[in-house]
Structures are given as structure tokens and as C-alpha cells.
């Protein structure tokens, strides 16, 4: 028997029992709609979490000199001079996993402007630093590569520094300040970032070209750190591996020697993030399966009633030449049609619910295509799974008894 004929028969049976079919579909409709809406909410919050986390620089990778032992005394890593500008160049040239990279040197000192002064830390970096740390500017602009090359005496300052050095609310950009008695021109003010998770004030900073800090303030040639950002969070661990290899090569370490540097990514942050989103997904999938299961049981129930009710019809169909497989397919297709139609309506309802939630509750939502595809596929499978048993029962009927059934 041709599939088209079967489809027609099943379609007719559904149309003849509109109300009942609609009520049966309701389970599936509500199930699918809630899955779509919930996944949209889930995806929405996942995205907003992702944004929050990446604003913290979750894909950041830092390279520091390793601790060394001199005469039995272990040395503080920050006093090491083993990290060179050449290392920075080597990484920058050879890596494929990084989007930004900057050398970092830092020193503390006193910021002075007129009668005001404030102790702060100066960071010598290149212009990519802002992208790595996900920093924005309130006013002014970042220094340029040219200013880095010429070791210009320009700085950007954080809000805490502004508050303490320019207490009268003057515009800091364009003003001159002194850091450790060296005059700098303020060319920009950083956006406020508040404290980080360790309670450090992230606005208490002065940023200048690394060349300037190296030559004019610290009088050093080595680097304290190299900071970089991986192309994405997922790429961070691989970036670490790659950088480690480049650095070992650069420092000519033999296979049996330990690293004389450390490379770290924000692994903890990333794993927290991914476990959170995994939990969320598992939870939603669980809810999805429960609601679809209930919808499926509804279908099975109604298919049972339908087979019972139409026993005589089944007998007739068999008498005029319907094979068991034809009857099976008829009821199976009917179940699948119900569940898929329910799925379509459910998707539509879910999408409108999502729009409603976004518009009136102002929750972040994001409808993922995969959620539609998955719930659709699950619907079809539900139809087959729960339609199978009643359909089998129908197909196994004896035509003689079925014909005589009252």
C-alpha cells in the first residue's frame, strides 16, 4: 500500500475526531512549548552569564617568570629577570591561538597633581592591553603604537586615581601629572570596573606604554609578565600548551629541565562557567523529557481507545484486503501525525511565549535552532514509540473477531 494512501487515511481519521485529536495534542503542544520557552530562557541566561564572565577576561592567559633557587634560597618569581621582550616577540609571531598579546611591566609609586597625591601602581603595556582586560575608556583615547615606540610620557588613569588626584571634578584628560616625579600627560580615563573577586580595586591603576615604564621609571629591560587573550575560552587550554612549547624553545630548555616560567589561564572561571551551563542544560533536558513523556502517554492512551473503538473498522479493512502491516502503519502514522502536528503547534506557542517573556518580563531569551530541531525530533520519536504498541495491537487483531465486534 502506498504511503500517500496511508497518509490520507490517517489524516481523515484525525479530521473526523477534531476535538479529541486536539485534546490529545494538547499534551504535546504544552510539552514542546514549555521546552522551547525554557530552553530560550536558559540560552538567554547562559548568554548573559557568558557576557558577564567574558567581561572579566575569561580567556586571559598570563606568562610569568618561574621561581628560581639561588644558593638554596627560593626566590620570589616577581624578582626574576628571565622573561624577555624577545619571548614576547616569539610568542606573538608563532602563536595561532591568541587574539591579543602585550608585554607587562609594573611598578608602584606616587601620583602627584598640584597639591594632591595618591599612591598607585603603574602598568606598562601596549595598546592591546585594553582588549585583553576588557577595559573601556570614559574619555580620551588609548596611546598608539607610535607612542609606545617613542616611549612617550602619556598615561591613562583609573577612576580611583581620578577621584584622589583631581578631587575638584576637573577634566583629567589633557592635564599633567607626575608619577615618581616624572611628568606624564593624561590622555584618557578608564571606565570604572569596581573591585575584582579578590577585593582589589581595579580602578586604582595608571597605564602607560611599557617602553616608557621600562626606561623612565624602572630602568629595566626585562618584562614582569606577558598577558594575552586566547581566541575564545575554549581555546585557552590549548593556547597554554602552545605558549609553553614556544617558551621552552625560546629558553632552550632540555627535555629533563623544568619550565623556568609559568603560563596560566583562567581555568577555574572557565570550568565553573561550563559546569553551570551543563547543569542548566541537563535540567532543561530533564524537564523536556518529562513533559514529552506525559504528552506521549496521552497519545498512547488515545490510540488505545481509538483502536478499541474502531475494531470493527479494522476488521472491515482487513476483510477488503488490508494487511496487518497496513493497519499497523495506519495507526502509527496517525500517532505520528498527531505528535508532529502537536510539535508544530507547540513550537509556535513556545516561540510566542518566548516573545511574551522577553517583551513583558524583560528576561533575556534566545531561541536556539537546536531546541526546535530537538523537540521536533523528540515529537516524531514519541509518536512512533507511543503509537507502536496500540498499532501493533490493532494489526494483530483477528479479522473474524474484529468484524463481529460490537
Amino acid at each position, binding site marked *: *500500500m502506498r504511503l500517500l494512501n496511508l497518509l490520507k487515511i490517517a489524516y481523515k481519521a484525525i479530521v473526523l475526531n477534531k476535538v479529541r485529536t486536539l485534546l490529545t495534542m494538547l499534551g504535546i503542544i504544552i510539552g514542546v512549548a514549555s521546552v522551547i520557552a525554557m530552553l530560550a530562557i536558559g540560552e538567554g541566561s547562559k548568554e548573559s552569564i557568558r557576557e558577564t564572565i567574558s567581561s572579566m577576561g575569561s580567556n586571559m592567559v598570563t606568562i610569568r617568570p618561574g621561581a628560581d633557587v639561588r644558593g638554596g634560597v627560593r626566590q620570589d618569581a616577581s624578582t626574576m629577570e628571565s622573561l624577555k621582550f624577545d619571548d614576547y616577540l616569539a610568542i606573538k609571531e608563532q602563536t595561532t591561538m591568541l587574539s591579543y598579546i602585550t608585554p607587562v611591566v609594573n611598578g608602584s609609586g606616587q601620583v602627584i597633581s598640584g597639591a594632591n597625591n595618591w599612591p598607585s601602581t603603574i602598568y606598562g603595556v601596549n595598546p592591546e592591553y585594553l582588549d585583553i582586560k576588557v577595559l573601556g575608556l570614559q574619555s580620551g583615547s588609548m596611546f598608539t603604537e607610535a607612542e609606545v615606540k617613542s616611549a612617550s610620557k602619556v598615561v591613562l588613569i583609573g577612576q580611583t586615581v581620578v577621584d584622589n588626584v583631581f578631587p575638584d571634578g576637573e577634566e583629567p584628560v589633557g592635564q599633567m601629572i607626575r608619577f615618581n616625579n616624572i611628568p606624564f600627560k593624561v590622555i584618557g580615563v578608564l571606565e570604572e570596573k569596581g573591585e575584582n573577586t579578590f577585593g582589589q580595586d581595579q580602578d586604582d591603576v595608571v597605564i602607560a606604554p611599557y617602553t616608557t615604564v621600562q626606561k623612565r621609571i624602572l630602568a629595566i629591560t626585562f618584562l614582569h609578565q606577558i598577558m594575552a587573550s586566547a581566541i575564545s575560552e575554549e581555546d585557552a587550554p590549548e593556547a597554554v600548551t602552545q605558549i609553553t612549547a614556544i617558551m621552552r624553545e625560546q629558553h632552550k630548555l632540555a627535555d629533563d629541565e623544568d619550565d623556568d616560567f609559568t603560563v596560566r589561564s583562567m581555568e577555574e572561571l572557565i570550568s565553573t562557567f561550563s559546569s553551570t551551563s551543563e547543569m542548566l542544560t541537563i535540567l532543561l533536558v530533564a524537564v523536556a523529557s518529562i513533559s514529552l513523556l506525559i504528552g506521549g502517554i496521552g497519545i498512547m492512551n488515545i490510540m488505545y481507545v481509538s483502536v478499541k473503538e474502531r475494531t*470493527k473498522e479494522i476488521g*472491515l479493512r482487513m*476483510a*477488503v*484486503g488490508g494487511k496487518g502491516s*497496513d493497519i499497523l502503519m495506519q495507526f502509527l502514522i496517525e500517532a505520528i501525525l498527531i505528535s508532529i502536528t502537536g510539535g508544530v503547534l507547540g513550537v509556535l506557542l513556545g516561540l510566542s511565549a518566548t516573545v511574551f517573556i522577553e517583551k513583558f518580563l524583560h528576561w533575556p531569551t534566545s531561541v536556539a535552532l537546536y531546541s526546535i530541531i530537538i523537540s521536533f525530533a523528540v515529537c516524531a520519536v514519541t509518536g512512533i514509540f507511543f503509537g507502536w504498541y496500540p498499532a501493533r495491537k490493532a494489526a494483530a487483531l483477528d*479479522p473474524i473477531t474484529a468484524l463481529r465486534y460490537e
Partner: protein
Amino acid sequence: MSKKIIKIQDLKREFTMGTETVHALKGISFTIEEGQFVTIMGSSGSGKSTMLNILGCLDQPTSGVYEIDGVSVKDLSKNELATIRNEKIGFIFQSYNLLARTSAIENVELPLLYNSKVSTEERRKRALNALEMVGLADRIHHTPSQLSGGQQQRVAIARALVNNPVMILADEATGNLDTRTSYEIMSLFQELNKTQGITITFVTHEPDIAMFSSRTIVLKDGHVIKDEMNDTILSAAAELAKLPKEDH
């Protein structure tokens, strides 16, 4: 000698009910030739229903030979039986067995739906043709609830004709109808038998119906006790004319 449609030889059918074996048919033999109008009669318990089920390829004999249109039915699989029913037999039931809320034409098309060799256009054409033959060409879109009992049975007859069966098998086809309507139906059967040469096997327990057929087989306790040609076949149309005119 015309073609043998049905050939039955020493046919037996036994049922096992718990520990007991019931012999419903105890060795039956007869043949039905093309163009015959046969009535199979018998009271309840005579094995008439079992005979009908076997003739209709809904059931298989325990032993013996049953051939329909040259095909031996014994040892056929369920699916093969379904194909035989689809292609060689036209069923007519006492309670019509039409699909509710389904138009006459769709009811008539039903057997052809299960025959993948028939195209959609062909199916529609043959269904229309069959409905025309039973005089319902103007009622093709009526559903069973919009048709009288007689008309419903005509739809069922059209459905039985639509697959050009070698034999029409009617099970108490007039049992639910009043005298006038059953004469109408019988006259239709006679006409189909006479003009189209369609072989008809009519299973009934009403003796007066047998008088319209050309041959009567009587079963009792699983045996054929009488099998004879009718010398005087009554014309259902003539009987119908004799009935007092109704008031409406």
C-alpha cells in the same frame, strides 16, 4: 462447462476449545462455477459461519482442499490471504460495515486503497462506475448517516464490486432490511448476476431468500445435507411489484 470459481474437497475445520475439539466442518465438498448465484443455508450451529469465513479467506481449513479462482488457499500466509481477499472477493455484510462520516465514494474506494496497482484516477473512476451500477450515482458524497438502510447496503455492494472480484460473498446481506428493501437488494443481486455474470455466494438462514438464487446448499452439523439447482427461480423484481404499494 464454465470455469470453476470455487473448488472445495473434503474440507474440515476444527477448533480447540480448552481441552475439547469442536468439529465445525466435517468433510465438505462442492464446487461453484462462474456465473452461479448460490445460497448457503443452515441454522445456527450448522457450520455456516465457519464456511463463510473459509470461503472469504478470513480463516483457513484444518484439512482438505479449498481453491478460489485456481489458487489453493491452504498454507497461504496472512498477507497472501489479504491479497486474495483484496483481489478476488467482494464482501457484503449484514450491518453494511461502512466507514462512518465518510462519503459513499470514499467507502467504495476503500478496497482499492489496499491495491497499490490502482492509481488515484483509476480508483475514482472505478468507484464512480460501481456506484452507478447500484443506482447511487447521485449520492456519491452522502455519508452513511445521510443514507437509508437500503442505500447503505447498495454502497456496500458497490464496494464489493469495485475490485472486480471473481465472487461476491454476502453474509445475511438483507438481514437488517425490511421486506421491500430486501427484495430491492435481491433484485439488484439478480440483475448483477444476470447482466454482468457475477458469481454470488449468499450465506443466509432465511429460506425465502434462497428462492431467488439458482442453487441452494444446505449445511447441517458440519455436513452438506442438500445441494441442488433451483428449477424455479423467483424474480425479485416481480415479487417487489406484487408487494402492496406504500403510502408515501
